[in-house]
């Protein structure tokens, strides 16, 4: 109860705000450094893109590039494709997530447990790998296509809009699923029991109670999926079959033509939909945000009735089987000469110097940036939850906004800002680390804020009371208590950093190639075997890292 009070205290900045802000100078300095970093590494790049789209930065103010955007049906088509595919992807992912979450959180059998693992599997693979798998399976002479002959009709082609959508659904499913599942898991079961007690069957309960209550989780998941799908350019490149998409066009404009202005315009249109949804969810929905999530109800989730279970079970099974199939294809692809054509076993694809090098880079960059993102996010979360900070709301908004900016835009923004004085960072590992850190810092922040709400203020006060000053208290009490949030933030940031492409693709250089980008490059060249092998290694490594964390969790008792 008391833990929520402090945030009320600090609503409007009063003259005393600054004084109290400086009362703990180290925290104040840290806050200022963080704020500057957020401005430089999140806000400035976005603004740079915006300015560039009007020709500013090198030339003079012009609407030329916007005019061009609206004149060329080509770009408009890309806008349409991007937004439509993202919307469809988001919608389907949310539907699937709801179904799988229901099944997983309300069944106790082995299947449910394995589905949970399978559902998260795509998170550890680069998203476009599913494009490859889809082509192997459903391409014009894919395994499935051949097998079923003209089942799909002569017109069927996996290339194009629907191929992209399908690949995105699989690739971005875990993101939505994670959020939606945790909302479902923590729901107060008594509310559903109450509905049943009042005569609602399970369908009605789901529609009238469960889903509305899960709204904020669903919307948050939907936002993230939408942004990721929007920023996705790898799938369009591989399976898009020439259809244009904003992100891939922006990418080609930058790397192929160095037309940064036009790319910036595309970036603006990439960011607009995300921005609208982000603002919608931050401000409109916050008001109606209902504190229904109470883990302490202690009652197990309401079991599913037969028909509901049958439906969500079927959906989960089909989807899980499909995801597994995708992974089987990747694994097979890695171990045979040419999948589908020459299926003899080989290990040749693993003999790939460049690949191993880029894998090392990726691990390094992801590790550092995930540590930074989780660490800084946690620090920021603590400061925001407990300290008097002028302009806190704005800073928090900007940090979380980092999550909503499509990677493509961030990448272009970084190119614009850091490819010249005063910050010449292009081609350095540092730039990659900074980029990933600040794109993921929101994850740490959110984890920390929600954790801080669970940590009663009295914990710190007790520490004060026992003679520890604010800094001691931070290190002795807060830091250990935030460890689980840190680890959770770290894991998420690490996994997504390993597979992230959309923004770093603009920032890599010969010595700093990253494995996800490298695999994309292989995929573009049609080197399925090599791409599969590298993906396989990458998946194994990410899984190993997770297993290691689990192991540490067991050993130390720190809940992850």
């Amino acid at each position, binding site marked *: 109860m008391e833990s929520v009070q402090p945030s009320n205290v600090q609503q409007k900045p009063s003259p005393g705000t600054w004084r109290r802000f400086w009362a703990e100078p180290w925290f104040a300095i840290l806050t200022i450094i963080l704020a500057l970093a957020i401005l430089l590494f999140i806000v400035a790049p976005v603004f740079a893109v915006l300015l560039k789209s009007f020709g500013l930065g090198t030339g003079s103010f012009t609407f030329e590039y916007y005019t061009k955007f609206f004149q060329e*049906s*080509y770009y408009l*088509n890309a806008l349409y494709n991007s937004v439509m595919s993202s919307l469809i992807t988001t919608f389907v992912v949310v539907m699937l997530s709801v179904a799988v979450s229901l099944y997983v959180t309300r069944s106790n059998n082995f299947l449910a447990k394995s589905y949970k693992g399978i559902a998260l599997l795509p998170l550890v693979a680069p998203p476009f790998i599913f494009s490859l798998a889809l*082509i*192997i399976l459903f*391409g*014009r*002479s894919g395994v499935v296509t051949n097998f079923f002959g003209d089942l799909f009709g002569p017109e069927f082609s996996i*290339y194009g809009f629907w191929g992209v959508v399908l690949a995105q659904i699989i690739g971005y499913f875990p993101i939505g699923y994670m959020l939606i599942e945790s909302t479902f898991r923590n729901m107060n079961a008594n509310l559903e029991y109450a509905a049943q007690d009042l005569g609602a069957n399970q369908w009605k309960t789901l529609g009238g109670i469960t889903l509305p209550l899960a709204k904020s989780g669903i919307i948050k998941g939907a936002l993230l999926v939408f942004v990721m799908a929007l920023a996705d350019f790898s799938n369009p*490149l591989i399976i898009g*079959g*020439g259809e*244009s998409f904003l992100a891939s066009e922006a990418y*080609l404009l*930058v*790397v*192929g*033509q*160095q037309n940064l202005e036009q790319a910036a315009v595309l970036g603006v249109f990439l960011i607009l939909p995300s921005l609208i949804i982000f603002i919608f969810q931050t401000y409109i929905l916050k008001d109606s945000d209902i504190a229904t999530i109470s883990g302490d109800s202690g009652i197990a989730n309401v079991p599913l009735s037969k028909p509901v279970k049958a439906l969500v079970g079927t959906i989960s099974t089909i989807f899980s089987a499909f995801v597994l199939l995708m992974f089987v294809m990747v694994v097979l692809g890695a171990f045979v*000469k*040419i999948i*589908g*054509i*020459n299926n003899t076993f080989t290990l040749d694809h693993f003999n*790939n*110097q*460049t690949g191993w*090098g880029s894998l090392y880079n990726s691990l390094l960059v992801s590790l550092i940036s995930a540590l930074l993102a989780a660490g800084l996010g946690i620090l920021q979360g603590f400061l925001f939850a407990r300290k008097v900070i002028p302009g806190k709301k704005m800073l928090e908004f900007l940090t979380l906004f980092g999550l909503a900016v499509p990677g493509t835009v961030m990448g272009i923004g970084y190119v614009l800002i850091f*490819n010249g004085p005063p910050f*010449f960072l*292009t*081609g350095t590992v540092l730039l990659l680390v900074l980029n990933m850190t600040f794109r993921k810092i929101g994850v740490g922040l959110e984890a920390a804020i929600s954790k801080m709400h669970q940590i009663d203020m009295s914990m710190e006060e007790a520490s004060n009371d026992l003679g520890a000053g604010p800094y001691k208290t931070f290190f002795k009490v807060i830091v250990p208590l935030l460890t689980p949030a840190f680890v959770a933030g770290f894991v998420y940031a690490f996994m997504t950093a390993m597979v992230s492409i959309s923004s770093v693709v603009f920032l*890599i*250089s*010969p*010595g700093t*190639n990253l494995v996800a980008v490298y695999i994309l*490059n*292989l995929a*573009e*060249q*049609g*080197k*399925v075997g*090599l791409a599969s092998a590298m993906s396989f290694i990458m998946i194994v490594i990410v899984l190993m890292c997770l297993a290691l964390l689990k192991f540490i969790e067991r050993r130390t008792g720190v809940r992850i």
Partner: protein
Amino acid sequence: ACSDSSSSNDNSDSTDKEIDVYTHNDSEEMQDFVADLKEDTGINVNVLRLSSGEGWSRIESEAPNFGADMQWGMLHSIALKAEKEDYLEPYESPTWEDVPDEFKDEEGKWYGWSYWFNLLAINEDIIEEKGLDVPQSWKDLLDPQYKGEIVLPDPGTSGTAYLFVSTIMQIMGEEEGWEYFEELNQNVGQYTKSGDAPAQMVSQGEYAVGITWDQAVYNRIDEGYPLKPVYPSEGVGYDLDVIWMFKNTENRETVEEVIDYIGSEKGMESSAKHRSMVTKPGIEGTVDGVEEHLIDYDAEWAEENRDRIMEEWRERFSE
């Protein structure tokens, strides 16, 4: 591992020698080249593969602070452009002396180490299955029977594609050339980003016919794909594949060493394992009797008209 005689000042410390290169070469062949180089000279190479269009944009945007020390594998036409922009550092390499002058810059700003040419990749299984004829010429590709069965790289990003485009222009003349592409566009199932990808897709049976380049086809035939190379009867354009040293490199000595190596017998033999033809006399590439199919390709024309043609291409074919 550094047993070779190549002039290195400090052999014991050879692991220190490391350079960054850009390439448009195929990842796998590049890997072999790099491995051979490492074995013979101990030099480490960081490779960033960028398709030729991408590579050029990047170079342009990075000038004068290039992100790499040298280019290992690039279009001849782009080398000419880069030379004009003064991005290149001259170096007279002793090992390249016996390479004919037509394959290298007189000041040593660029060296052509191999040449490559357009080629049709045909998947015989698919052709048979779908009852198609094997196309014999560029013109044949316009036949409606190939509708949706042709895969072609996008000249915006692929040097292979631009070679094809300018070859057609040089054979047919510009006007007729555009008509040809308009018609061809009807049959194209997909444009790809890289020049290699059509070969891959055709070999996997995604499409029946791919417009690609020589080695992309021959490598896959070696690997066991059911591919068949076809030299269109009108003849094919060819292009030099070049290397150069970027201006302002901080590793000049190492780059020189690498250039020397590529021009050496050993280097050329390494290249010849993956290329149909290399420029060093007396070293045989992987394929014989190519010369008869080559047209008298005008690389300079291609270079000069590149921007204009590309612009028009985008307007016509970027939907």
